């Protein structure tokens, strides 16, 4: 089956910055592609080209069988886009935003109104429907923007960092919403800085850096390369570190590594929280005290370290894409 989103050799330069450097992408029908990369990797540029907002310097792309450069209008009819920054009118209410979009899709007044109400309901915004968007929280704005991209029920959807800047709870809500869309058969291209997000939502992941794909594959393949989740413990009494190591070894998939100032142990594991609980119970039963304990999942930074031997460019920035991810519920 031909790909619904197909890009070949997309290239875009801004002065001497190469935002995209010959990027190829293929997304089969009803599949989710996660475009994973740090800030400045070229994710937004790729999305803007595929959604006709930007012309590439070289390369070509088709979306839903339509050439992006030759028939941009036709492409716009078939896609939904929710960009990195919510494209909503702050002064209008949520309802008015969606109604306006419906009418600009030329649905007619009645259908535009019905569709607006339906989407507000579906995205749990009914209570806020009559309020100006400037009173919305970040999560509500993102949901409204996503609703806006779904007004014409597109079969192809582009979401540019849909959860960046959201609090953990809003992020989980957003994941559920996206999951549901995908279950209905939408073809989705999603960009993200979070490996965990790509892992949850994407069938295939393309890791990009400096406008180029540096790895492709499903989440498992990627994680196999990077290493999966790990338990990290910091023990109080370094004399008893051997005992702690012994308990960790019973669940470890590989070698247990000593780090920190000789009081930290890291064990690759599977089973997430269940495994962590088991370890904790045994440590407690043995009367072993800990200073810190955590379940760590690999982050984008771990991926970069594994793939390139270097952390992401912005790993040092506070709040940058490479910050350690919270373990999701």
């Amino acid at each position, binding site marked *: 089956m031909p790909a619904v989103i197909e890009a070949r050799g997309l290239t875009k330069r801004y002065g001497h910055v190469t935002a995209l450097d010959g990027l190829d992408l293929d997304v089969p029908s009803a599949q989710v592609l996660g475009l994973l990369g740090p800030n400045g990797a070229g994710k937004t540029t790729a999305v803007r080209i595929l*959604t*006709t*907002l*930007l*012309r590439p310097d070289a390369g070509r792309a088709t979306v839903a069988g339509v050439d992006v450069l030759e028939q941009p*209008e*036709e492409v*716009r*009819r078939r*896609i939904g*886009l929710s*960009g990195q*920054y*919510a*494209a*909503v*009118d*702050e*002064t*209008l209410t949520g309802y*008015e935003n969606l109604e*306006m*979009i419906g*009418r*600009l*899709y*030329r649905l007619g007044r009645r259908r535009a109104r019905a569709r607006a109400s339906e989407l507000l309901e579906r995205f749990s915004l009914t209570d806020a429907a009559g309020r*100006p968007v400037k009173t919305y929280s970040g999560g509500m704005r993102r949901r409204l*923007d996503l609703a*806006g*991209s779904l007004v014409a029920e597109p079969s192809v959807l582009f979401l540019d960092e849909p959860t960046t800047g959201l609090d953990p709870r809003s992020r989980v809500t957003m994941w559920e919403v996206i999951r549901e869309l995908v279950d209905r058969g939408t073809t989705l291209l999603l960009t993200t800085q979070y490996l965990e997000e790509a892992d949850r939502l994407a069938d295939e992941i393309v890791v990009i850096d400096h406008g180029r794909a540096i790895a492709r594959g499903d989440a498992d393949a990627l994680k196999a390369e990077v290493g999966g989740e790990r338990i990290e413990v910091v023990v109080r009494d370094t004399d008893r570190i051997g005992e702690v190591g012994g308990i960790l070894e019973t669940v470890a998939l590989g070698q247990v590594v000593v780090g920190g100032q000789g009081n930290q142990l890291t064990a690759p594991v599977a089973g997430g929280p269940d495994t962590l609980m088991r370890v904790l119970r045994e440590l407690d039963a043995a009367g072993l005290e800990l200073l810190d304990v955590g379940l760590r999942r690999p982050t984008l930074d771990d991926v970069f370290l594994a793939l390139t031997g270097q952390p992401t460019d912005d790993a040092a920035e506070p709040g940058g894409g490479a910050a350690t991810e919270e373990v999701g519920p």
Partner: protein
Amino acid sequence: MSRIGWAVHDGHIVALRNVRKIRRVPEVLVFVLISPIMFVLLFAYVFGDSIPIAGLDYREFLIAGIFAQTVIFGATFTGAGIAEDMQKGIIDRFRSLPMSRSAVLVGRTASDVIYNLLSILIMTLTGLLVGWRIRGSLIDALGGFLLLLVFAYAFSWVMAFVGLLVPSVEVINNASFIVIFPVTFIANTFVPSENLPGPLRTFAEWNPVSAVTQAAREAFGNTNPALPPPDVWPLRHPVAYTLLWVGIILVVFIPLSVRQYQRAAAR
């Protein structure tokens, strides 16, 4: 529907959105309406008696000029509105929709007609209070108002284009003054063009602002047979000359602005 039909439809939707925004932030209207009142009062009382015009009360002469200047200044709102729209996130939404490429501009220029309608109403009332009178028929007077609005509408496309060129909303006011002050002052708006020196006088005679002012003056019956307009074609046929300019401006600036919109939005 045809392409033009859809362009009107989409422009209409964007205009409705703009009107909603005006209703939600009505404070803007206060500023829109205070300056016309101020203009009428200032000119009537400051210059009212110091600029003598043979056979005509200066206030009578003046009102059409103030009307013309004010509705042309109204175009500044269009420029600012467009510049602001371009900075807002909603533009990305508009650009990703299969809607007409001209809709944002068509909608903005259309909804801004409201400002001019209101300011004409306010100026008319203020003018009547300070002694101005419509001396012709009401139909003619309405024709005069209509011509002012049509000319201002065309001119708002010029400022829409300027609004797309400037990097931010803050720049637009200064940019507008550079365009608007010369065209509204080097005209017969505040003094008869005969009073102007050589080259300025020629400019004033061929300036469409003079023609629309002259046309409004005639429509309001604020003229005196003893003081005929200068014997130049534009001022002898002010309505035709004004409409000619309206046509030229629209034909040039609509396509120019739509092209610039597409470029600016793709940044």
